[in-house]
């Protein structure tokens, strides 16, 4: 079966050269290698000594130790390092699920979460976030979606594209629903660390569910998308081995300098998170003021986490608005069409340093 084109990526590719002001991107402000090395004096010399032979397939042992240190109880041997977060999603859908299985996916969402599965003949049901409840999905609905063939539930928190963050109680209920039915629970945690109030941060799933798979990377929380470093944490040995075995047909092993640099990021995550959080909150305050000025055009509820938000556009087709906007002004927003939600919703991303300028341009254009 053919895999569907990744609509969001195709949209980015289409506007690669015309979009001057990216107001819909999910990755926060990035940093240079020099910025990252500055966290650890002497690391520049160490980087020069990084050996450029093959690396260990499971990930650099030192990096796995550092990553495991982020978890309450996950051991280094329960960490499997990949290239970005796309690769482990792809591996999970191939190595763990079988054609004919059923998967429940938090929706709207990142297309990889369901299109890869569908391409393998895995049936997918959407567990919808409710826009009238700031995109909280209905916990009563979740058990109703589960069938005899259901093998896994996939959630994303903090959520892309809505910014929804499960509260601790709801998150615990999802775990219990999965546990009662002996289902795998795959939690995309790549936006973890972007909680606007750090006190709202949820624990890692892998620390709290024996059949849980925590997915993380450095792209969305640290602004280090160029490192292409992601990982899986799981205490389920069978899942771990299946993913490790499948990885032999993907990248096999990771980029050596990338793993070295990723180690610096992981060891200095609190400071990096704080830098990003300050910018996110500041930008989100500007966005709140913007939406207050344009209540005739947008309906919005403030998210508690993430780098993105998914307001409702009241002026008609969000796709037409976004297409017109990028063509006329170079300002790029992401219409909900590319999250398989055609109609009224669109995504704003507020993690970039250029956000204020881009938003001011949009504001001026709408006012003019």
């Amino acid at each position, binding site marked *: 079966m053919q895999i569907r084109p990744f609509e969001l*990526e195709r949209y*980015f590719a289409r506007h690669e050269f015309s979009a001057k*002001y990216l107001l819909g*991107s999910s990755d926060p402000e990035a940093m240079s290698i020099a910025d990252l090395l500055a966290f650890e004096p002497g690391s520049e010399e160490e980087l020069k000594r990084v050996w450029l032979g093959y690396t260990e397939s499971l990930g650099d042992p030192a990096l796995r130790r550092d990553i495991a240190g982020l978890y309450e109880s996950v051991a280094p041997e329960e960490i499997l390092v990949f290239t970005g977060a796309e690769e482990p999603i792809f591996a999970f859908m191939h190595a763990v699920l079988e054609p004919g299985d059923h998967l429940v996916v938090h929706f709207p969402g990142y297309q*990889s979460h369901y299109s890869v599965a569908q391409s393998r003949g895995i049936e997918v049901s959407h567990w919808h976030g409710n826009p009238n409840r700031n995109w909280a999905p209905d916990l009563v609905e979740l058990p109703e979606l589960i069938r005899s063939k259901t093998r896994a539930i996939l959630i994303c928190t903090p959520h892309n594209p809505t910014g929804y963050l499960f509260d601790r109680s709801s998150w615990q209920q999802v775990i219990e629903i999965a546990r009662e039915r002996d289902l795998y629970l795959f939690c995309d945690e790549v936006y973890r660390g972007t909680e606007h109030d750090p006190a709202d941060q949820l624990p890692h799933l892998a620390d709290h569910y024996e059949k849980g798979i925590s997915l993380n990377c450095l792209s969305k929380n640290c602004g280090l998308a160029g490192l292409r470093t992601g990982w899986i944490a799981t205490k389920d040995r069978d899942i771990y081995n299946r993913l490790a075995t499948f990885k032999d047909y993907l990248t096999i092993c990771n980029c050596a300098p990338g793993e070295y640099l990723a180690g610096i990021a992981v060891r200095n995550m609190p400071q990096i998170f704080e830098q990003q959080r300050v910018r996110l909150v500041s930008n989100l305050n500007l966005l709140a003021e913007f939406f207050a000025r344009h209540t005739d055009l947008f309906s919005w509820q403030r998210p508690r986490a993430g780098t993105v938000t998914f307001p409702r556009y009241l002026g008609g087709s969000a796709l037409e608005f976004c297409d017109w906007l990028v063509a006329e002004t170079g300002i790029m927003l992401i219409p909900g069409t590319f999250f398989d939600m055609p109609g009224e919703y669109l995504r704003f991303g507020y993690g970039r340093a250029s956000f204020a300028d881009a938003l001011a341009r949009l504001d001026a254009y709408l006012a003019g």
Partner: protein
Amino acid sequence: MKIINKILFVSLLAGAVITTGCGSEPPAPQAQPSAVESADMKPADVKIDGNAAGTNISLPGGIKIQTGEGGAKVNLPGINIDTTETGAKVSMPGVEVTTEGDKATVNMPGMSVTSDGANSNVDMGEIKVNTDGTDSNVSVGDMKIDVKDGETTIQTPDSGEKTNTDAE
């Protein structure tokens, strides 16, 4: 390429207009017998008045030519040409060309051309071309090309943030 074509076209048009305004010397009429003995043109339609101060010629079709000391005027339907000893003005709907000594201006909708000695400027809104005879600069929106002291520098517009993916 479109921009270059537009400049070329407008330059040619401006050149044509200026040529019209300056008026190259027409060849002297040959004394040849008319095949038709002025069947349609009645002598009464041509009026020529002349004295020491100048000459007025009126031709069918609303053409009037006046010459006098230091200048001449030619009026055709929709076109006026006025020359003095040092300059000329050609007007037609939407287009005005003026020359005075070594200064010249051409104005037409969406475009103006001015020259003063060695300096020339072309302004087409987003497109501007300037030269002082030695150095030149061209701007197209945010893109700027400067030629100074034989060196060319090109400043391209900020192409925005570099990213083409939203990958996790």
